[in-house]
Structures are given as structure tokens and as C-alpha cells.
């Protein structure tokens, strides 16, 4: 597995950030955007060259994907996998929300007669939501199903469930799962229009939290039944819908509860066996309160829990994979990362939120990802 986001490019940088409680957020410096906010921008994405073979695929999302694929010997791991399993039996399942939209935004800033794209932008696939999965499958030389999951901020958590089902059904023997989302004006001004962006670094579960910080990230994992070397186990997953509102969670957290319960049920685990929850924890006033209440419904005595979004920013379509990898690293290191920036915790209803990182023995962790459209996903990971 590998992860590149504002907290670090590659797992060793992420591990250091986790141990040093170091945020990757910075004052907004994205070109064409003058919003007063903090962002989790990955350094040097715009300088990544895709090479002549992939020059027709250039967009920020693919540059970030390329950077991500080059870390942690991921290519070597995939090549090793392809020695054991035919490429036709390996799927590529990627979650994204923004795909190549920053490129489409640029095309619209430079229209001919206000109605036509210039030549450089006349590449249909760059404007498609499928551009990330399609590109990654091409770079890695995979021949199995190539699938984009785009359910807002639950996208790259759901990819694990899609892959597990395809393996169980016999369509494939392994999958590259992951997520890529790059910063763009659509999401910055979009969340700004909803008044959900903080002007300061986000503070999940803090009494003074006032909105999210957006980020970008690319993370990937190899999922197979009998790996040569395992980095963690996917034990259960839950997927549900709020059936309530496009942009606000159900006030009773019913969808979130259903997803967490399903994850426990498919893993055949009791709530008290889970040692850590990586919360969705976007740091908006309402979402954090509803998630904390939902956790308390499913876990009568909640384990230490945290949102790692103040390390990375909210990476939207990449949030599922970003936080799955934080969860898997927590299991590997037996180290619980704290909810960074939670300086004045909500003692009344979020007393289980971890404000200081700590070493602790653990076997099972849960990762929550919730998105617009009322789409909820919870994943249960186990130690090797």
C-alpha cells in the first residue's frame, strides 16, 4: 500500500507526521483561488511529468496519481502480483470525485468565442470522471475490470467492498483499490458556497470547530485473498444510505449506525473488540456531533477515536483510502494517532475522542467515511 497527501508523500513521511502530530495544512495558495482558508496541498504535483507514453492523460488528478504510484515500491509490488496472478484477473477500482475537473475548469477560463475549448483541451477522457481509474489501470498494466466509484466522500472506502465482492464472486483474484482527488476550484468554492469551510486549520471534534479544510491525496492498496506478505486484513464492511438530504447527514445518524453495525456483523465482531475508530470527522459543527452520537449508539463504551483530517485536510473522494491507510498504519505500529487540533474537546458528547496520541495494543480498527447523497461506508480492518 502507499499514500501521498499533505501529511507526507509515501508511508515513511506519513508515519513521521503521525508520530510527531504534524499537520500538512497550509494557508491557501492554490492558483485562481483567493479564499481565506487552509488547504492540504501536496507539494510539486504540478511539476510531475507523465512521460511521452501518457502525455495525453495530463491533468492534476493524474499527476497526483503518478506521484502516489511511484512511492513505497508500489510498482514493484504490483509487478510481483502480476507474476503470480494474470493481469486479466486483477481489477482496478478507484474512488474519486474531482477526477480531471481542474482541467475542465482551466479549459473554461480560456474558451474560444466563449463557446469552444482550445485544442489542448479537446481530449474527452480528461474531462471524464473515469480518467483516474482508467489512467491507473493503464500505467499498472491491469486487464481486469476498471471501475470508478464516485459517491462523494465515501468513494474510496466503498472500493474495498466492491473488490471483495468481485473476488468472492470469482470475477477476479486481486484488485488494486484506492482513491485520488486533487484540489480544484469546484470543491473550494463549492464548500465555500455551503459555508462549510473554516478560515483556520480544521479542528475536528473541538468545541470551536467551524468547518473543514480541503485537501488532496492519492492512495492505493493491493487486495487479495492469500497475499505473500500481508499489511492488514479487511474483515468487514458496511454500506448504507441516509435517505434524508443531499448535503446534510440524517440528524439521528441512522445511516452511519447502519454502516458501522454492518461492518461489525460481516466481521463477526462485537463492539468491545474494536480498539480504535478513525472517524469521518470533517470538523463541521453538525457532522461531528451526529457522528459522535452514532458511534455511541453502536459502541455503548466507545474505543478511543480520532479524525485524522487535521493532518491531511478532507481529501473527499480520496478520504476513504487516506484514512484506511492511517488505520492500517495504526494497527501496524500499535500507535493511535490523535485528533489533531482538538484542543478543547466536547466533553459532553465526545469524551472518547483522543486528544493525545498513544501506544496501545489493538487487533481491530474501524474507519468511517460518509458523503453527500447520504452515502455511508464503514470498514473494519484487522491486524496481520
Amino acid at each position, binding site marked *: 500500500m502507499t499514500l501521498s497527501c499533505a501529511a507526507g508523500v509515501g508511508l515513511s513521511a506519513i508515519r513521521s507526521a503521525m508520530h510527531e502530530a504534524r499537520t500538512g495544512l497550509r494557508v491557501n495558495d492554490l492558483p485562481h483561488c483567493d479564499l481565506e482558508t487552509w488547504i492540504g496541498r501536496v507539494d510539486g504535483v504540478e511539476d510531475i511529468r507523465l512521460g511521452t507514453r501518457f502525455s495525453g492523460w495530463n491533468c492534476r488528478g493524474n499527476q497526483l496519481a503518478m506521484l502516489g504510484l511511484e512511492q513505497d515500491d508500489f510498482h514493484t509490488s504490483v509487478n510481483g502480483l502480476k507474476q503470480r496472478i494474470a493481469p486479466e484477473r486483477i481489477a482496478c477500482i478507484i474512488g474519486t470525485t474531482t477526477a480531471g475537473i481542474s482541467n475542465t475548469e482551466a479549459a473554461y477560463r480560456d474558451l474560444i468565442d466563449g463557446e469552444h475549448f482550445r485544442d489542448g483541451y479537446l481530449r474527452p477522457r480528461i474531462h471524464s470522471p473515469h480518467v483516474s481509474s482508467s489512467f491507473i489501470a493503464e500505467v499498472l498494466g491491469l486487464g481486469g*475490470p476498471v471501475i470508478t466509484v464516485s459517491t462523494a466522500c465515501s468513494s474510496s472506502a466503498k472500493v474495498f467492498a466492491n473488490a471483495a465482492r468481485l473476488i468472492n*464472486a470469482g470475477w477476479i483474484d486481486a484488485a488494486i483499490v484506492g482513491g485520488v482527488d486533487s484540489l480544484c476550484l469546484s470543491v473550494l468554492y463549492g464548500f465555500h458556497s455551503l459555508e462549510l469551510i473554516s478560515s483556520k486549520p480544521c479542528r475536528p471534534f473541538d468545541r470551536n470547530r467551524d468547518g473543514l479544510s480541503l485537501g488532496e491525496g492519492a492512495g492505493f492498496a493491493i487486495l487479495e485473498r492469500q497475499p505473500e506478505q500481508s499489511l492488514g486484513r479487511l474483515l468487514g464492511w458496511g454500506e448504507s444510505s441516509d435517505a434524508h438530504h443531499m448535503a446534510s447527514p440524517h440528524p439521528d445518524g441512522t445511516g452511519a449506525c447502519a454502516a458501522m453495525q454492518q461492518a461489525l456483523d460481516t466481521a463477526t465482531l462485537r463492539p468491545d473488540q474494536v480498539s480504535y475508530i478513525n472517524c469521518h470527522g470533517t470538523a463541521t459543527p453538525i457532522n461531528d456531533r451526529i457522528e459522535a452520537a452514532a458511534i455511541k449508539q453502536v459502541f455503548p463504551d466507545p474505543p478511543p477515536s480520532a479524525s485524522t483530517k487535521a493532518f491531511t485536510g478532507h481529501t473527499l473522494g480520496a478520504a476513504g483510502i487516506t484514512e484506511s491507510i492511517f488505520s492500517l498504519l495504526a494497527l501496524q505500529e500499535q500507535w493511535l494517532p490523535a485528533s489533531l487540533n482538538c484542543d478543547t474537546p466536547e466533553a459532553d458528547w465526545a469524551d472518547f475522542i483522543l486528544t493525545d496520541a498513544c501506544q496501545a495494543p489493538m487487533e481491530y480498527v474501524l474507519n468511517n467515511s460518509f458523503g453527500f*447523497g*447520504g452515502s455511508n461506508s464503514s470498514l473494519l480492518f484487522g491486524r496481520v
Partner: protein
Amino acid sequence: MKIDVDIRGVGICAPGLADWNCLLDAFTGTELNVNQPLEMGSLLSIRDRRRAPVTVKLTFSAAQQACDMAGITPDKPIAIFSTAMGDMDISDYMCRILAHSPDQLSPTRFHNSVHNAASGYWSIGVGAKGDVTALCGGPDSATVGLIEALSRISDTEQPVLLVIYDGIATGPMHDLFPTVYPFCAAFLLSRPVAAPPLARLSAEPGRGPDSVPPMPASLIERIADNPAARVLPLLALIGGQTNRPVMLGAEQGPGILFRRREA
């Protein structure tokens, strides 16, 4: 790997193709009346029919038809929505406003811009609290949706609603995506059950180009026009217009080979 699947209901929404019976007529040569406005079904309120995103207007009727034909209440099935380009009307609006006056962006149009807007409104509209997902496979979105639906059927006894759709591009994107006719097809699928299905098919991975069984030119034209309409040969197999195997291919990855089975 080979799986039997029951088709328990289908729904269609496209200019000149208001429902399954219209499509059956079209297969036998009835001319398409493209000037008829699209059906929106009865699940949307009058207010929502006006203000809902175009993808909702395109998908709700077909999805409802498929559930009705199967006699299944629409909140029950797992729902999979698959589309190549999603809502290109909103993409055009957002990119234009971001280029000139980003502070004026409408919050409603922003949250409706997610790829899972149609599936989200479906979940809200019918009260579906199970999994409702949104996929994309670019030009292979129909194949990708069907592969996901088939893997669900292996995984659960629950029925699965699969909605495959694509609309038309607004503004500069029309140069790149010149689709003329929107198209939506919905399928209500399940494992074989005792009740007689509309059709029982076997499905297995395959590689190769799409099959195109004989059908009127007006329908062949739709297949080339809209990636979602690539399911028309599969619909012909379901409707008994052909008995030969139907291959639905993919540019990347496997396609699916469907055969008709005795129910």
C-alpha cells in the same frame, strides 16, 4: 465463472422510448416519436419535477418502471447507478461560473454536482436506506454497472436495481461528447427465484466487440449516439428479439457474454 440471473423488470426512458412496450414496438419497426417529452414517473413531486437535476428527470421513470414490473417496492433493492458523464448541465454551469465569478456559485447546484446526485435523490425519494451506489466506467459504464450488479447477485439474495444512463452535453463539452439523445435503461435483477422472470440469462466474462443483433436503424443509431444505449442489444435479448448470445464489451477489462436460458 458463470452466473444465472433473473431479469424481473426493465424500464426505459429516452426520446421516443417512454417504456418497455414502446421499446418492444420499436424493435418491430414502429417509428420513434422523438418530440414526446420525457416521462418522469410519479415518484417526484410536481415541485421536484421542475427543479430536480436533469439526471434525476432522466432516471426516475425508468427505475420506477423496473421496480413496478418486478412488483418490488422501490426502497427494497440495492441500487447501482452507472453513467459515463453524469450531469453535464451542472458541469457546464459550474465551470462557467468558476471562470468568471466563483463567489456566485449556487450551493444547491454544487451539492447536486456530485456523481451520485441521481442515486442520492433516488434514495431520498423512495426512502432506500440500503446501499445505493454510483459508478462510472467512461464509455464502458454499462458494462461496469452490469459487472457490479452480477457480483452483488452472487453476494446477496436481495434484488438489485441497476440504472444505466447518460444525458447530453451543454456548452463547449458538446464538441467532445456530441450525444444527441439522452438514454436511460433500468434493470431489476435477482438470483433465479421460483416466480417466472421476464427473462433468465446466464452471464460470464468475455472479451470482444459488442454484439449488434438485427434491429431497426433508428435504434442502431442510438447505440452509436449514447454510451448508455449500448445495452439495447441486451434488451433485445431480454425481449426475445434475438436468441443468439449477446456480448457487451469494454475498452479496458472484460466484457460480459449473455445467453438466454429456459426459466
